[in-house]
């Protein structure tokens, strides 16, 4: 019965649906049950600011300082899972190795400009959480480039970035919300110079490597000269 306008394939067969109804009833979905929040924002590609993607985050807290999010291209039942984002407090970000920091982006601007929001939640309530998000960093990887028309998740994972300064691209009026969020504090130590790839772009490349053997393999012989 379920077919998909954007993803190739036959409609799901009745037998398959019935099986899934059975498994859904008896299995344990622990981590999925921990996902409790829908956050909407925009990401752009780490090497191409002109390609921007609407990102619907569905987030669960590991604790007060760390969230893990599934990113979809829409909030609907047939939404495509296009990536993941991890969100950490400023304190946790500071513990990351320097080489790692470049893959993380700050959220201060996105929150304070109103671009990042919780759909369906009244302003006063969402601002309580967003005030925290304004003081976090995120690491976003996308696997499915729906914005270029891919109907399957092709190619390499992409490190994504978020808006960190004024971008006039969107014609949506965020002015009112920006006023409402003016009170929010940003990062205690300011935006770390290594975050947001230090203002540069980031791209991913594939490299072939020797794959060291698994359980049954012998160690690769090494020659020392």
């Amino acid at each position, binding site marked *: 019965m*379920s077919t998909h306008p954007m*993803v*190739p*394939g036959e*409609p*799901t067969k009745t*037998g*398959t649906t019935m099986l*899934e109804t059975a*498994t*859904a009833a008896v*299995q*344990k*979905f*622990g*981590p999925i049950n*921990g996902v*409790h*929040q*829908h956050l909407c924002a925009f990401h752009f590609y780490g*090497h*191409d*600011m002109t390609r921007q993607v609407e990102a619907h985050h*569905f987030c669960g807290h590991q604790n*007060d*300082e*760390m969230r*893990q999010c*599934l990113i979809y291209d829409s*909030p609907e039942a047939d939404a495509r*899972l296009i*990536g*993941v984002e*991890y969100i*950490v407090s400023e*304190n946790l970000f500071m513990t*990351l190795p320097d080489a*790692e920091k*470049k893959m993380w982006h700050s959220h201060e601007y996105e929150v304070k400009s109103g671009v990042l929001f*919780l759909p*369906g939640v*009244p302003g006063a309530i969402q601002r309580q*959480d967003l005030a925290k998000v304004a003081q976090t960093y995120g690491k976003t990887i996308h696997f499915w480039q729906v914005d270029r028309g891919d109907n399957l*998740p*092709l190619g*390499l*994972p992409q490190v994504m970035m978020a808006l960190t300064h004024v971008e006039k691209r969107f014609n949506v009026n965020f002015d009112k919300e920006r006023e409402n969020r003016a009170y929010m504090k940003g990062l205690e130590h300011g935006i770390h110079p290594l975050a947001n790839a230090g203002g*540069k772009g*980031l*791209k*991913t490349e*594939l*490299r072939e*490597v*020797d*794959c060291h*053997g*698994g*359980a*049954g393999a012998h160690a690769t012989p090494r020659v020392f000269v």
Partner: protein
Amino acid sequence: MASTEGREGQTPGEGMTMKDHLLTKGAEMLQSMKPIKQYKQHVCTFALYSHDMNRQIETHHFVHRLNEDFCQCPVYDSDDRAGRLIGVEYIISDRLFEALPPDEQKLWHSHYFEIKSGLWVNPRVPETVAKPGLDIFAKTYGKFWCTWQTDRGDLLPIGEPALMVSPQGEVAGMVKAPLLQQRDEKYALSSTKISDLRVDITGPTFKNPNADYWIKHGKGFAIDVLTAEMKKITPFP
């Protein structure tokens, strides 16, 4: 004051206060969360790092089927509520796989062996109920990117995304016995016995040699994240 010391395997950070829990619960009730309600199956299986097949992990996939040929699965390191999101796997039918370009196909792995050998299980689901679904999955291919390498002790998601491959009958693709035993004991099952029940499961009509690239080429893949020029202006058409 933030706690940045994590207990073994535990994500560092302060716990949520009661107020936080109430706020998030309240907001949750106002949001529709539709995509999250589409997960109907839990699969527990194993995967190996493509660039280092000595490193093997137990995985927990939650399956969202978009149609008969395509599933998308967030992957966690356990089925507990505190399970860590370690990556995403996409699963496609052999029909869709055959239509992919060869360079794309080499990033995908087959599922036939891990299903047939009882490594892939549906916890809490009787084998007779699971069987028709397994016949379908046995003919599929998967593409699995790992974004949090908890097996090497990372308490936060550090490093480049890693391509994962599936267990195979080849020597290098075999799952280490202690890892398998630990999983089987946790769920009170026996992979060997389950494998005996799966003798008549068949794989794809044609197993494409571009999948499971390492078998034929002895090579895996690594991802490098490099600094690049940022494109800022769309060229005028």
